[in-house]
């Protein structure tokens, strides 16, 4: 452990944890978004249900799911820890501080955006992960995950909450994606412009897709 104690004991090490776990979450989101986008095939959720079935029973996926949860918990705990540590580094606040003059609001609001994400995730996991993995409802064949989705998104308030969650995600990633590389020590004129534009489009596209899913189900665009 000696060589890795810096991950917990130093500010830079803590940011390494944020960056690594953040990138893992970004990778997961790409897969998650791809699988869920199968509902847009508009075949009554058949293809999507097959994919979801596969994800639910594949050993490799289930093992990765455990690491994903650990990563998310680590990311959230370390993120909250850093937010408090950073807030207390300036006990006497400024009377007037013009943050907009030198940085983007969302880069200064990662803690808030992350907390909104966390609250959203708790609800989201309860809606789908809990139902599909921990109850008999879907494995017994009484219902499908697609059916569950239609049920959940029949409620317009839930749709609104999901869209707020996705907007938080969009801004969290607009800063977070490129920030992770900087934290891990990657910044070079050869590839950083690519990372920045890739991160921008990744955040935008994935967020639009995620936002359209509940809307499409609610409004009956996909049946």
């Amino acid at each position, binding site marked *: 452990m000696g060589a890795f104690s810096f991950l917990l004991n130093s500010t830079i090490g803590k940011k390494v944890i944020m960056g690594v776990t953040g990138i893992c979450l970004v990778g997961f989101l790409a897969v998650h978004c791809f699988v869920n986008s199968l509902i847009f095939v508009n075949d009554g959720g058949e293809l999507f249900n097959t994919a979801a079935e596969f994800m639910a029973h594949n050993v490799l996926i289930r093992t990765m799911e455990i690491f994903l949860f650990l990563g998310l918990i680590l990311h959230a705990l370390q993120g909250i820890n850093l937010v408090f540590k950073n807030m207390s580094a300036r006990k006497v606040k400024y009377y007037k501080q013009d943050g907009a003059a030198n940085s983007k609001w969302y880069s200064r609001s*990662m803690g808030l955006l992350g907390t909104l994400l966390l609250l959203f995730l708790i609800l989201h996991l309860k809606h789908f992960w809990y139902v599909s993995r921990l109850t008999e409802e879907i494995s017994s064949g009484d219902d499908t995950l697609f059916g569950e989705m239609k049920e959940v998104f029949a409620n317009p308030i839930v749709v609104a909450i999901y869209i707020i969650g996705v907007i938080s995600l969009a801004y969290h990633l607009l800063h977070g994606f490129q920030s992770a590389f900087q934290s891990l020590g990657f910044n070079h004129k050869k590839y950083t412009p690519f990372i920045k534009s890739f991160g921008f489009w990744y955040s935008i596209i994935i967020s639009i897709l995620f936002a359209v899913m509940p809307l499409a189900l609610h409004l009956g665009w996909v049946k």
Partner: protein
Amino acid sequence: MSENMNLTLKVWRQRNNKDKGKFEDFKVNDISPDMSFLEMFDVLNEQLISQGSDPIAFDHDCREGICGMCSMYINGRPHGPKEGITTCQLHMRSFKDGDTIVVEPWRANAFPVIKDLVVDRTAFDRIIAAGGFISVNTGNAQDGNSIPISKIDADIAFAAAACIGCGACVAACKNASAMLFVSAKINQLSHLPQGQPERMQRVRAMVHQMDKEGFGACTNTGACSAECPKEISLVNIASMNCDYIKANVIDSNG
């Protein structure tokens, strides 16, 4: 020539480190737009002295943008509204007649207020003392040309060496993080052959001291670089992170 102006200043007054401190309002009249911000403060202080009150304490030395002393947080920004300059290089033509200007000291736990606008920045000195140097035996300096250095490395080192240790990066950062300063001081050495022998121990020691002083962690908002009078690049922070990870994970002297 534009007209002279009358201004209201809202300045932080604090007798000493123990004092709670408060804002005081002052009026200054007939200020020339060609004065520097510090010269305007000189006018105000002359006024205060002639009234028999305590002049406002503020740090300054070179008054030409190279010493880094003139720490003033003006209208919510370190060194005021312009980019790439220090307070002493800020001219009154950046303000309008009738403006109210708020002036505060740098705010960070690691930079305690000594008096009024003067803060204690010796935390930076302790970070330098922890490793921001190269060890050489005394004696005659070696001929400069006997150590070849690529133009690219020389330029990177030189750009990093432009840091004047003013602390505006810390003042601007929402986390009061000193990463830009520390990374500049590391990179001015780590790109030169003379900096190589102690490169890994230097980054470990300086980051350790930085954390000990109570500066916050970097969240890559970029406020530091945007407000830095010497426009030190964020690339320095990434290089430092990279070296720091290497120093902990693969350096054999770790």
